[in-house]
């Protein structure tokens, strides 16, 4: 027997953080001070009422100052994790700690067509194909709409996106809508698929990504959505956005303090509506804009690691981002930015990592980029995994048995373990002649080809005709009432 191993830290894996715990504490205090001193403007009367009754001070109708004690109380009831399920009710995403799950973005205004490389307006078929590509790729864990279809009525495009995602994928869905009523309709559509409101509450198949005007300005629609999801016991993703130098101080700490004040205000509201409802906070943000061109780029280095470090400090599930680019085309810049942003989001442990496939800072997108991201994530999973060191993996007996001239290639130990090492999918590692013989393809060409292959071969299980029908009815009912 080998004796007893004490204090074994079995796995040590890569990590990246910008903040020490003491700094997180300071930033937390700063946000509490902003909430107590400056307060927020809150445009949903029901939420103003709730906060007032719970002890906040309200002036000028909608200016709400929230005492620190109310925030600390909310931290006492909010769960430190959230769960999302797939269409079959399997609890596939355990959103907690440093676990990473990945998915696309929503509503890109243009698409770079993988067949032609042409930039054009998206149609519903692009949304359906996006959902199918996401469904097929093993490292894509949730779906979002990806594109804004221009061949459906613009007043209710969200419902068509939702129908497409329900039909063409089985993975958990993150909804984004431009108004409150569409969210209600989308949730009802999801309920129809999983078998009713109670089933959805037990096994949340959807959540909603809610954008909030700024840290200190909470628009009505955003707060309505937050309260509605809490009433439904569904997790909410609540993301106030401040741009440093525009809607908050330009310094990272200042941008963060203002943004995070809004995150904490949302936390209090969610817990006042329903104690214990999961609340997902930003794992990215505190960006600025280019002070010469005024462009709001996505791929910026300064803000990396700040929001995520804070979310870990709070031990709350977070919505991160990665796999996007500011490039206009699927080119070297797009590959570089998607890869690096995924690498950092992963090392931050930014739970739900969205926006894969985005180009032009969200004004455009690409299916082919998803294929690239899928491969990068695979690589990252290997690059960040913990290493197990034990008798089996050290294999000292094997070394001794083989001796100094040993050849391990045909050993049972090799056969048993070689698959644990990474193997490329679309990245080329062949010798020149082999590469030439295979058609001298570029990475971009291989990405497009893979998308075509998926679309030709992959079809997720269909919904039953009755459920499809019901989903369609809800869509039509809301579409008509919107008119």
């Amino acid at each position, binding site marked *: 027997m080998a004796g007893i191993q004490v204090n074994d830290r079995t796995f040590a894996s890569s990590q990246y953080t910008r903040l020490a715990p003491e700094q997180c504490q300071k930033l937390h205090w700063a946000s509490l001070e902003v909430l107590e001193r400056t307060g927020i403007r809150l445009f949903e009367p029901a939420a103003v009422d709730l906060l007032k009754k719970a002890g906040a001070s309200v002036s000028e109708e909608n200016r709400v100052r929230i005492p620190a004690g109310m925030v600390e109380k909310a931290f006492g009831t909010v769960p430190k994790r959230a769960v999302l399920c797939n269409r079959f009710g399997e609890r596939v995403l355990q959103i907690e700690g440093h676990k990473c799950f990945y998915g696309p973005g929503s509503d890109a*205004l243009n698409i770079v067509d993988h067949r032609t490389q042409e930039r054009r307006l998206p149609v519903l078929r692009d949304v359906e194909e996006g959902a199918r590509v996401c469904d097929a790729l093993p490292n894509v864990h949730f779906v979002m709409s990806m594109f*804004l279809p*221009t061949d459906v009525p*613009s*007043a209710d*495009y969200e419902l068509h996106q939702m129908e497409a995602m329900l039909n063409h994928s089985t993975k958990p869905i993150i909804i984004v809508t*431009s*108004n409150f009523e569409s969210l209600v309709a989308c949730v009802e559509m999801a309920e129809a698929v999983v078998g009713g409101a109670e089933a959805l509450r037990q096994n949340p198949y959807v959540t909603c990504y809610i954008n909030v*005007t700024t840290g200190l300005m909470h*628009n009505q629609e955003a707060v309505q959505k937050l309260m509605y999801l809490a009433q439904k016991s569904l997790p909410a993703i609540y993301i106030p956005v401040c*741009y440093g*130098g*525009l*809607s908050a101080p330009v310094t990272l700490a200042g941008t963060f303090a203002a943004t995070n004040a809004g995150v904490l205000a949302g936390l209090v509201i969610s817990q006042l509506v329903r104690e214990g409802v999961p609340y997902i906070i930003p794992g990215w943000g505190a960006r600025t*804009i280019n*002070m*010469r*061109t*005024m*462009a*709001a780029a996505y791929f910026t280095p300064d803000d990396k690691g700040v929001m995520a470090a804070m979310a870990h400090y709070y031990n709350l599930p977070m919505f991160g981002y990665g796999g996007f680019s500011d490039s206009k085309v699927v080119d070297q810049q797009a590959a570089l930015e998607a890869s690096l942003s995924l690498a950092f989001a992963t090392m931050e442990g930014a739970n739900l990592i969205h926006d894969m496939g985005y180009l032009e800072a969200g*004004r455009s997108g690409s299916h082919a980029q998803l294929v690239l991201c899928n491969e990068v994530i695979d690589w990252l999973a290997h690059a960040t995994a913990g290493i197990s060191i034990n008798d089996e993996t050290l294999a000292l007996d094997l070394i001794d048995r083989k001796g100094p001239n040993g050849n391990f290639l045909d050993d049972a130990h090799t056969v048993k373990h070689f698959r644990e090492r990474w193997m490329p999918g679309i990245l080329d590692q062949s010798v020149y002649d082999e590469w030439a013989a295979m058609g001298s393809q570029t990475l971009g060409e291989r990405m497009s080809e893979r998308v075509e292959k998926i679309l030709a071969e992959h079809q997720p299980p269909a919904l039953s005709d009755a459920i499809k029908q019901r989903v369609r009815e809800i869509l039509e009912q809301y579409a008509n009432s919107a008119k």
Partner: protein
Amino acid sequence: MTNPTIQIIYNAILEGDRERVQTQVKHAIETGIDLVSILNDGMIAAMAEVGRRFSCGDYYVPEMLIAARAMQDGLKLIKPHLMQTEIKSSGKVVAGTVKGDLHDIGKTLVCMMLEGAGFEILDLGTDVAPEKFVETVRAEKPHLLAMSALLTTTMPNMQATINALVKAGLRDQVKVIIGGAPLTDKYAQQIGADGFAADAGRAVALAKSLVG
């Protein structure tokens, strides 16, 4: 530019020092320095230099904006002492983000850059209904109406506003410019706007070309 006060005003504008611009302009008025030369050699010359530094990359937008603010402060002080013809405002602009839309970063930037270029701005904020735009155009008689929309769902409210202007008989009295991520030149033509610009720099050029 021999007068030392004018030189100080010129430098204070370059540095965006509002307080120093104000005290120096007051001082100049009290001591009877030629106001037209304060305007031309102090203020306008300083803004030209700011523009030059911006173009060659020495200055960034915030520096340009504080310089423009400082210049405006000085201008306010000497305005009552000058004849109308001696100061030309570039034009008056009513701006806002259309109904249902809360995106204001782009709109605010466009306003600030237009202000920097000498336009007088009336910013109505976000979620601005067509009636509100029309009312303001009637009351304020601006040269330009600048509308912003970032959502495909709110873009139609630009068309609605232009229709409302036509109905109110005001369409001929104001040029309409539009912008925002989902918009295009083609859309501007389609709804009968006078122009579209893809960023704040182009918005200034567009505004100047329409009003100048």
